[in-house]
């Protein structure tokens, strides 16, 4: 297993290299450069030209690429051209925020999706099954940023006007913490963070949860027809044990594959949702960096996302072997 993991990580190196090269070409092919935002009536073209020279943007593109690659490989991600801060510092601040949001969403996607899928399969063709199918389709068809806006409008604004609405269900509209966060005690801090996490993670995760539920339902229905389920019933096991022990683990096998597939979606979704909820994460940083042609920051954020996706896929493959004893990696 260890050899397998090491081999997979080594295989990822050329992949990541290919990705950053491609991104480098694409951002530089886009019109404009980082100096554009400094162009103002009071700033003379010579100053702009001087900035370009300082940042090395006047050199031929392949020289720029090689010099960027050289410092990148030595671990130097450079300095953000717009924030004038080391990129490492920016990433250190933003990465955990994005991981918190995507982690919460991931948990929501799989916990809710799997639970609903099981219920639907067990109660196939019941009214509940139909209602959940319709609901899943509805949520699945909804764009995450719009859902985010609706959640803010209703659960973070309208309900605040209602006297009787419980305070716990009045959610904050943006940010990761409340204004009085620094004055809170330990538990209150945790509560405040969780409270801020609810709406964005729902906005980010609900569509995927709906599709996981669809997959889980059909996977479960497939498993329930198997001979070994009849064997389990013939042993006198309760329906609960039959479903949650004998059927569930088998039904999860195809779902584990989804884990690897959803992670990239989750990160790209995070870009929009972080914007809507003013969540100080990687997604927002990346979008801002792209708009401002902050080349080093674009490269660094893209690279980090690519690494996340590679790792997530590796984890999915390892999980596969954990759930299915028939799979062994050499």
């Amino acid at each position, binding site marked *: 297993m260890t050899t397998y993991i090491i081999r997979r990580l080594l295989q990822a190196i050329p992949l990541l290299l290919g990705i950053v090269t491609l991104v480098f070409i694409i951002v530089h092919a886009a019109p404009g450069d980082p100096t554009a935002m400094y162009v103002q009536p009071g700033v003379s073209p010579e100053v702009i030209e001087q900035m370009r020279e300082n940042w090395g943007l006047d050199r031929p593109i392949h020289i720029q690429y090689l010099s960027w690659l050289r410092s990148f490989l030595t671990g130097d991600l450079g300095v953000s051209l717009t924030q004038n801060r080391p990129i490492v510092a920016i990433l250190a601040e933003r990465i955990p925020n994005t991981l918190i949001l995507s982690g919460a969403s991931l948990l929501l996607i799989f916990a809710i999706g799997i639970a609903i899928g099981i219920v639907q399969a067990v109660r196939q063709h019941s009214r509940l099954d139909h209602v959940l199918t319709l609901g899943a389709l509805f949520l699945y068809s909804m764009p995450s940023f719009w859902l985010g806006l609706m959640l803010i409008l209703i659960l973070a604004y309208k309900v605040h006007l209602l006297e009787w609405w419980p305070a716990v269900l009045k959610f904050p509209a943006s940010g990761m913490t409340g204004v009085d966060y620094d004055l809170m005690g330990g538990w209150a801090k945790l509560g405040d963070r969780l409270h801020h996490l609810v709406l964005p993670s729902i906005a980010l995760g609900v569509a995927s949860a709906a599709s996981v539920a669809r997959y889980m339902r059909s996977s479960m229905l497939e498993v329930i027809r198997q001979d070994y389920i009849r*064997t389990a*019933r013939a*042993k*006198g096991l309760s329906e609960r044990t039959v479903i949650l022990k*004998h059927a569930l683990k088998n039904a999860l096998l195809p779902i584990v594959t989804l884990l690897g597939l959803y992670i990239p979606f989750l990160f790209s979704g995070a870009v929009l949702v972080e914007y809507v909820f003013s969540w100080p994460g990687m997604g927002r940083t990346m979008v801002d960096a792209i708009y401002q042609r902050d080349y080093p920051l674009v490269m660094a954020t893209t690279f980090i996302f690519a690494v996340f996706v590679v790792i997530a896929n590796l984890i999915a493959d390892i999980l596969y072997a954990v759930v*299915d004893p028939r799979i062994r990696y050499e």
Partner: protein
Amino acid sequence: MGAPLLRVEDLRAYFHTADGVVRAVDGVSFSLEPGETLGIVGESGCGKTVACLSILRLLDPPGRIEPGSRIMLRDRELTAASEEEMRSVRGNEISMIFQEPMTSLNPVWTIGDQIAETLRRHRRARPAEARRRAAEMLRLMGIGFPEQRLDEYPHQFSGGMRQRAMLAMALACDPSVLIADEPTTALDVTIQAEILDLLAGLQERLGMGLVFVSHDLGVIAQIADRVIVMYAGQVVESGTADEIFRRPRHPYSEGLLRATPRVGRKMQQLSVIPGSVASPKLWPSGCRFHPRCPYAWDRCREELPVLRGEARAVRCWLEEEPARRTGGWDGAALAEDR
């Protein structure tokens, strides 16, 4: 002696589907004594498996046991038992093993876990105790190194070994009835013989009643004390194994026997029963076997014969009009062979 170990009376199991009622099992009765082996024979689709599943009340909807059917385990009426009661019967008093050992074990749990589970469920055994007993069961089934085997998964077992593991699971709680639904059909002939020997030996040792279902008369002849022959959801003939195999009285049993190859008997061609079992949605009128019967006459097309007799019973009008037993299978088989 009091009530038999297991008594099935007028068992009817129907599937109420959108396009009609499928009468898969239509009035089957039999009984089983401790230590006895009852063979159930018949072609595919004649209701054997549905009958077995009904005894454990394991039919999936839309299948259901019709009112009026009775399944008595000693003096308990299983058709009236609650689901909870049934769960304490399944795997504990009545166990069942299935045709496909390859797919009947759960691929993602270890063999040991699957055997021990039965013990934990019915005997409230602690994990260590259940494991010890599971190893003991595997050894009893003739599996070497049972301790190591417990931690293996079904895919690491061969077909024959999986059926042994199924048996270990089924017999772990020492049930009084074992229902074996074509347990050897999917196995190689040599493995098949081993499993049959094992079953016979276990039965002698544990004294359980065994219901053995097969379409293979050779296998039934080897293992059964008494035999019932099923056709189109009904019993058409019953008797001791000897009686059925030496002197079959129902034309269907006759045909089945003729279609079984035997060592030492030279045959140019294996005879067949022409046609196939009718659809259970629309059984033929009169005797359900008449479209394939070489003796059939008008009465067979119109009236369903009753099962006449007690221990030795036959469902055929020939019992009333024996003079009509002329011609028979040779003509029919030839007609088909042409």
